[in-house]
């Protein structure tokens, strides 16, 4: 599957939080096929930036446009996975994904075996280990057709093998013309990305 | 000492004037007892089926 060409245009974005300027006059354009890692020390404002681009945090100054139209009209194009688990602890893995993705059961089972959760489809999420829970949330990447991925520390709690699987998935998404923004503190080895460094603060 | 206390079966079922109170209660009692019996049987059956399913799963994973 190949996505339509898409671009995100960020201009003059500034954000101040807790009396501290996190980023100032940030301008950039992201095009189809681009993978961008937002880097920076703890508290630099990576999460804040990602949430702003995802439309979850109000823009303080500046503009963000997608294919020339304002952000709020294009939210369906975005897949956002953040710090929070994004899944309901009391539901099974399968039910969670069914609701979030709308895919059918067979497809989801195939996806689950891709992310190493084969046989766990009817475990409750709260019975999973930390990393297994993350895998469940990330399984959405194998289902959804949104071209823009915004992933906040997707590698957290994943073991080495799953990190590789995820890298491969992100690469294939970019090849298909999607855009991926992510943050992480351990730079991933098997991924081609550009880096946006946010100021040093802590 | 043991004789049928009602003149006819209809009278027995009417149990005038309290049939409406007595019979539903016995019906409910029957319902509860049989319901619990049934529920137990079902729970047992489901446990067996779950174990069988697990065994089958293991067989498919083993080789």
């Amino acid at each position, binding site marked *: 599957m190949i996505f339509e060409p898409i671009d995100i245009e960020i201009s003059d974005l500034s954000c101040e939080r807790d009396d501290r300027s996190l980023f100032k006059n940030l301008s950039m354009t992201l095009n189809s096929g681009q993978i961008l890692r937002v880097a920076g020390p703890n508290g630099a404002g990576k999460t804040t930036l990602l949430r702003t681009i995802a439309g979850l945090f109000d823009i303080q100054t500046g503009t963000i446009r997608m294919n020339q139209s304002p952000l709020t009209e294009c939210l369906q194009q975005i897949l956002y996975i953040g710090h929070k688990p994004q899944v309901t602890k009391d539901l099974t893995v399968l039910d969670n994904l069914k609701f979030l993705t709308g895919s059918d059961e067979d497809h989801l089972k195939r996806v689950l075996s891709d992310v190493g959760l084969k046989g766990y489809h009817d475990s409750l999420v709260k019975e999973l280990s930390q990393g297994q829970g993350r895998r469940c949330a990330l399984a959405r990447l194998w289902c959804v057709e949104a071209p823009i991925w915004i992933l906040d520390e997707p590698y957290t709690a994943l073991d080495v093998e799953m990190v590789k699987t995820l890298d491969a998935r992100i690469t294939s998404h970019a090849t298909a013309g999607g855009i991926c923004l992510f943050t992480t503190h351990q730079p991933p080895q098997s991924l081609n990305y550009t880096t946006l460094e946010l100021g040093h603060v802590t | 000492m043991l004789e049928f206390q009602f003149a006819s079966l209809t009278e027995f079922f009417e149990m005038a004037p309290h049939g409406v109170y007595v019979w539903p*209660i016995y019906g409910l*009692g029957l319902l509860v007892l049989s319901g619990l019996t049934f529920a137990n*049987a079902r729970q047992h059956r489901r446990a067996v089926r779950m174990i069988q399913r697990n065994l089958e799963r293991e067989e498919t994973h083993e080789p």
Partner: protein
Amino acid sequence: MGWRWFHQWGSPRWFYERAGRWQLVCGWLALTLLITGSFWGLALAPVDYQQGNSYRIIYLHVPVAFLAQALYTAMAVCAVVLFVWKMKLADVAMQSIAVMGFAFTALSLVSGAVWGKPTWGTYWVWDARLTSMLILAFLYLGVIGLRAAIQDPDQAGKACGILVLVGVVNLPIIKYSVEWWNTLHQPASLKLTEKPAMPASMWIPLLINILGYYIAAGYLILGSMRAIVLERERRSAWVRELVSHA
């Protein structure tokens, strides 16, 4: 010999195999007794000169009410056994008794309430016995609810055990206080009929039914315990063997 006998109860397998047979015996025995007792009570026992035919509810109401109270005690005994001897079977028993106990409590409440309509003219009065029965129902409900809320069965068992024991300490206090509350201000305007000097043809079926319901409760508890044992022991070799042969 006594000790070994006691020890066997620690083995779920031993229990599961025996319980099947006991259950069968109990089931048929209870059925016979209940049919006999109920038919006798409904059809053959003489009419009560005061209450008329409505009194025939007694053959269900009284056995069930006795049972509702007895089962809570049984559950408490199981809790003690669970904590003292760490016997898993006691936890299983606790789980099934809670459900059966609630069922019988509810049945006695409903049968009593319905009986109240023709005799007292109302379904419910805040009589001491009725009130403490209602609270008993809530106690059972608490045990069931707590178990349902906790995922891990071992943990749920222990939590329920604590609750049951605290409840059993309180049960006499509740009963006493409710009685005292009810008689404090106004003499109860309505009373459960005092034990009448019944003719034998009235109390014999009652006795039969009491026995019948007790055995029926045994049958039901054994049945549900077997199912739970099977589910909890699903990993053990004997269960796997049993199921794969079935």
